């Protein structure tokens, strides 16, 4: 029995190391003073962050990622939230079909979708444009919004809305003053997912974006391929810190909203 416990512990530690070590290993290299992405680190410096901020390709790609990420968050967030509200309505015909269709973009391989978009966007005149990249990113981001908003809508007690309606609130007022605030945590986490998806998207960007829409992820992809340098570790550091920051903000907002909700529920 002792041996079994020991092996369980050993396996658990090894598996956790396998899962986490790569993420930890890349972070210190962002601060290396060397031009190589290798350990041991000869000295610490901020030169690679300066490179990100000052080298034109990196700065442009960061700005592009912010523009495209914001556009994707707004577009996918709006479309996904509306659709989740529709899915919740009992009057919707064939809800299962709609749900399946809304999740399909997560399933189709990105390269397949990319080829189709490249062919089709040329016809639409959307090739090499911000609008095209935002639309492409929104397609793959929208399932996350639908799932997240649907989950938070499912947690709303319908009686609260009926109570508001019975007190004379119009359907729009019920939506604005009751449903929307209660669903806000789900909408916000959906928006965070949408932004993160856009930030990380490489394959569709390869197919539909022109040189002027090169995103941070796309720039990282080509520099790993062509000229690997610690700038990649610095970009990865920004990615990880950015993800943690956004997640922290989402958690804080959610906490705050739950606090605001509590007096009403008590």
């Amino acid at each position: 029995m002792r041996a079994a416990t020991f092996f369980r512990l050993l396996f658990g530690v090894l598996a956790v190391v396998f899962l986490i070590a790569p993420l930890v290993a890349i972070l210190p290299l962002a601060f290396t003073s060397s031009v190589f992405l290798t350990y041991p680190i000869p000295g610490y410096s901020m030169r690679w962050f300066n490179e990100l901020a000052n080298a034109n390709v990196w700065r442009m790609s960061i700005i592009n990622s912010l523009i495209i990420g914001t556009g994707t968050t707004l577009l996918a967030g709006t479309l996904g939230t509306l659709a989740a509200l529709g899915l919740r309505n009992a009057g919707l015909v064939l809800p299962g079909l709609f749900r399946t269709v809304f999740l399909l973009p997560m399933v189709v391989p990105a390269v397949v979708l990319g080829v189709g978009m490249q062919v089709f966007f040329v016809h639409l005149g959307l090739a090499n444009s911000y609008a095209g990249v935002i639309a492409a990113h929104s397609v793959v981001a929208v399932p996350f919004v639908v799932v997240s908003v649907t989950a938070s809508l499912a947690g709303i007690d319908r009686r609260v809305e009926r109570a508001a309606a019975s007190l004379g609130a119009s359907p729009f007022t019920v939506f604005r003053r009751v449903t929307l605030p209660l669903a806000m945590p789900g909408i916000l986490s959906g928006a965070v997912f949408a932004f993160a998806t856009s930030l990380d998207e490489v394959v569709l960007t390869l197919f539909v974006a022109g040189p002027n829409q090169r995103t941070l992820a796309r720039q990282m992809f080509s520099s790993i391929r062509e000229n690997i340098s610690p700038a990649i570790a610095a970009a990865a550091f920004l990615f990880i810190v950015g993800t943690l920051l956004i997640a922290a903000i989402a958690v804080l907002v959610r906490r705050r909203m739950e606090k605001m909700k509590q007096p009403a529920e008590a």
Partner: protein
Amino acid sequence: MSETSLKGRLGALALVAPLVLFLAIFFAWPLASMLKESVSDPVGSHAFPLTAAVAGDWDRQSEPPEALKQAFVDDLRAIDDQQLLGDAVRRLNSAQNGFRTLMSRTIRAVEEQPEGPLDLVAVDKRWADVRFWRAVADSTNPYTDRYLLAALDYERDASGRIAALPAEASANTAILLRTLGIGAVVTLACALIGLPYAMLVASVDGWKRQALLGAVLLPLWTSLLVRTAAWFILLQEQGLINDTLMSLGLIGSPLPLIFNRLGVVIAMTHVLLPFMVLPIYSVLLSIPRNLMPAAASLGAPPWRAFLRVLLPLSLRGVVSGSLLVFMTAIGYYITPALIGGAQDQMISSVIAFYAIGSANWGMAGALGAILLVATLALYTVYGRLSADRAGGR
């Protein structure tokens, strides 16, 4: 009452309509245009419209009718788009060797005699050969199964029968098999790590469970590109793994870990492991906790209780997780592109090569169609399984 429900119905439709419309334009339509590219062959029908109109009257075996020959000459006289003509010659040459010289000679003859009937056999005696006319007539069909057949290493021979390509010209089957092989190895590796891991998570409580789950979720939330870059750093020749092993004296020279199959499998297993652990974990949570003590109380030793009770019950999660991992793995592009060598590229890389590298939409579309069908089939099975589970509860 019925009026309000009708209103509710329309309201619900109005809410889902924008997304349905958006996905129809930016998701379904692109996929449809990709599928169309895989069967379309528009060059011949654009370049030779008159020939296309009469090509259907010919049986493709007998001597081609005069009307067809005349239509072809008229088409050559009418064409003024040099790019289109060049594409058409390339298209004909790919169907029948020798067209390049034949066409340049014929075009010159047509230019010299801009009107009236022209004896093509006198221009070049190859025009007496029915195979050349068959290639011309075939090229005017706007649809083709050439790309789909080529994607599976088949072609139509001279008589129109489907035949296997010669071994030296066939690369796609090998790449398809390699894709399935890498997918299978990664799925197996994920199952071998994921099943015991999920069991470990389900068997502990409190902070231990939170920590073990967090270790799975943290990589899932981290950018795929960051994770791939991290593996690049770990696996490279002077990477942490080789450095550690060498300083421990376990190896004398760096192990080749990157730009080969081993590196691709390690990195993809890391990326896809959460998709295996989470479905198994959710199944394990639904298994009543008193089953194992019950088995023990009936005299089963722990290994037997595990084999006969826990393993069969968790198998459903393993199947769901495996389908999810395999389905995602066969479509992977980024990880093999960055960590793999030339011999580790999967079908997605080949599709990207045809689409971006050589603008061959037909082949990109055909290989894409195969990958799409395979993925959707796996997803359907996965959907059935999860629906069964939801219904069974």
